[in-house]
């Protein structure tokens, strides 16, 4: 190599090193990724914007929102974390795949419960795909599906992989029952966001998931105001029932195929019973889901209970004869004999779709059943005492 060549290569090397140094310096001055902004932030000042829900937390720093989703079976385990911002500034150096620019313009929603939140937030136009269309009752969505503006990506438990790739939604909201199993659509490598509202055992916590939805579409303020209204109404009813001294006993659900799946003592429904001034017979149980019991266990404990709560649907409405036709043993319950069944027709009342965002009405319905004098003239929406 000539002297000249040596000088050139040396100077090239020096330039390369200084460029590298410059780059690494500038990154040190700033941060490596969006995630570090949160890691460097004093922990004490980070307060979650979700106050009732156990399944997620939202933190905000410098116009970036960090969304943490927990494993519903173990709230200490973080399932996924997303960083959302509508500011273009951060995209210059974002490095994490969990970084999302909001508002998202297309989403596939795999649960009718979640669609209700979209409807309330006026962002149904962002929904490009749904699943299990035949079970959806929301008229707006039914119409959009009929006119072909919405596509179905799953039906009867099967996911349509190729159609999903074709529709190519930015994100997918899905509700997995089993996190250990890989989702059938995971191979598409689309951003799939687990949505665990149904695992939330606090009625207000379940309703709070509207904030979760809103986050992706820049509708935070709307969601906050909707949620605050729900909380206010709920607490007002709860306050009303808290004064009651006489708490009627209540049990729940039905016997099916040798098992009675009874709601646990920390379940969604147990908390509603408690807040409505009722004495739920399994309130001391620690379970947040449901427990399967022998008929005789339920009978032994609940045969003298005042009320019996059932959710379901009958072709031409509920009747005691139809209930008895399912099992003769039901006639031995006092709540049956005294005609104190509290029934919610899940189909007619769209309980599973709209109930989540109306916990205050569920509560009021129960109060009206258990303590009718507290809410005179009230018109129940979901639960009715069947005469």
């Amino acid at each position: 190599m000539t002297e000249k060549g040596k000088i050139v290569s040396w100077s090239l090397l020096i330039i390369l090193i200084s460029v590298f140094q410059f780059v690494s310096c500038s990154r040190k001055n700033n941060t490596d990724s969006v995630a570090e902004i949160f890691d460097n932030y004093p922990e004490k000042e980070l307060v979650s914007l979700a106050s009732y829900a156990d399944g997620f937390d939202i933190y905000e720093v410098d116009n970036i929102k960090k969304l943490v989703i927990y494993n519903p079976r173990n709230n200490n385990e973080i399932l996924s974390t997303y960083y959302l911002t509508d500011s273009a500034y951060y995209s210059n150096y974002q490095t994490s795949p969990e970084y999302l620019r909001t508002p998202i313009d297309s989403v596939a929603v795999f649960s009718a419960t979640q669609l209700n939140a979209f409807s309330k937030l006026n962002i149904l136009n962002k929904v490009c795909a749904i699943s299990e269309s035949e079970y959806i009752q929301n008229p707006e969505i039914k119409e959009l599906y009929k006119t072909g503006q919405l596509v179905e990506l799953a039906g009867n438990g099967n996911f349509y992989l190729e159609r999903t790739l074709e529709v190519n939604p930015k994100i997918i909201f899905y509700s997995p029952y089993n996190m250990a199993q890989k989702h059938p659509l995971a191979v598409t490598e689309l951003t799939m966001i687990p949505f665990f509202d149904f695992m939330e055992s606090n009625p207000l916590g379940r309703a709070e998931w509207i904030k979760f939805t809103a986050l992706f579409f820049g509708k935070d303020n709307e969601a906050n105001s909707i949620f605050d209204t729900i909380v206010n109404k709920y607490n007002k009813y709860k306050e009303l029932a808290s004064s009651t001294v006489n708490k009627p006993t209540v049990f729940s659900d039905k016997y099916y195929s040798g098992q009675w799946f009874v709601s646990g003592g920390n379940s969604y429904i147990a908390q509603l019973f408690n807040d409505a001034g009722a004495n739920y017979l399994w309130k001391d149980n620690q379970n947040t889901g449901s427990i399967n019991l022998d008929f005789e266990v339920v009978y032994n404990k609940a045969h003298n209970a005042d009320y019996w709560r059932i959710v379901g649907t009958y072709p031409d409405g509920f009747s005691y004869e139809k209930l008895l036709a399912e099992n003769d043993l039901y006639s031995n319950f006092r709540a049956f004999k005294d005609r104190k069944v509290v029934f919610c027709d899940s189909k007619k009342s769209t309980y599973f779709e709209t109930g989540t965002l109306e916990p205050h009405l569920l509560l009021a319905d129960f109060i009206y059943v258990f303590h009718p004098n507290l809410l005179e003239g009230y018109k129940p929406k979901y639960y009715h005492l069947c005469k």
Partner: protein
Amino acid sequence: MISRKHTSLFFVILPLLIVFLFLINLWYGSVNISWIDVLDTLMLNSNQNQASHIIILQYRLPQAITAMSVGIGLSISGLLLQTTFNNPLAGPSVLGISAGASLGVAIMVLLGGSMGLKLSGNLYMLGDMAVVVAAFAGALLVLLIIIFVSGKVGNAVTILIIGIMIGYLVSAIVGTMQFFSSSEDLHAFILWGLGSFSKTSLIQSISILIVTLVVVILSMLFVKPLNALLLGQQYAVSSGFNVKFLQTIFILISGFLIALGTAFTGPIAFIGLAVPHIARTILRTSNHRLLLPAVVLIGAVLTLGCNFISKLPGYDASLPINAVTSIVGAPIVIWVIIKGRRMSNG
């Protein structure tokens, strides 16, 4: 053949064992009830509104009666099928009859959901009675196909193979339906498949028992032709029996018993196949004059015993009966067969 003394001892001990297990089934459960309450209830001395009275009379009693009846029915059908087809592997599940019952239930619970045929949006609302009808219809359908085939084909082995094929076919159809059903419907279907003796009312259970006993008495009339069949179809023909007719009768009887049991309790595995083997090994005979009553007794003991075991101590729910019959029964059969071998060798 074992001595006469042993045989009569067997027929004394087993009825006593049945009575004992029956009472144990009434006394023991998730809810603690004292012996005195059990006896009071049985003598109709107790207060009718007392919880223990209703639990014993309306829950545990029908459960025990159903367990016993289904045990008897499945065991008899197993014996009849094994003799008819001259095959030790024949049993309720082999002829595709319990698969037929599954098909009926699957159409009701699974397909109903996806085709919108379902009577209601919530499958738990269907109630157990609708499922019973569906299971019975499915089982009878397969039964009719098999009887039709056996009318055309005289050969027992061919009928057996066709039965197995129908079973596979039906299982594949059910599997496909499962694939296309929602998780909720699947759950209901799986619950049914696990089996349960506690889905019958007292009246239903007594009816099942009476029907089963009538069929058992009816089948006692066929001891001679059964023994003849055991020595081969040709022997039976030469003894003056109409083999084709007999085959049809035996398939009909066993099919009816299987359909009855499966409809009310779900497919209970194992009993029908195992009990005839246990009876043959204990009594060391193939004479149906002894085998038929022995199978009735052993079947009742086994199902009552399994029902007792399924009620785990200190646990508020029962194990699925189908799991218990297999877990408890399979080792028993293996033990009995090995022991029988050793005795015959030594």
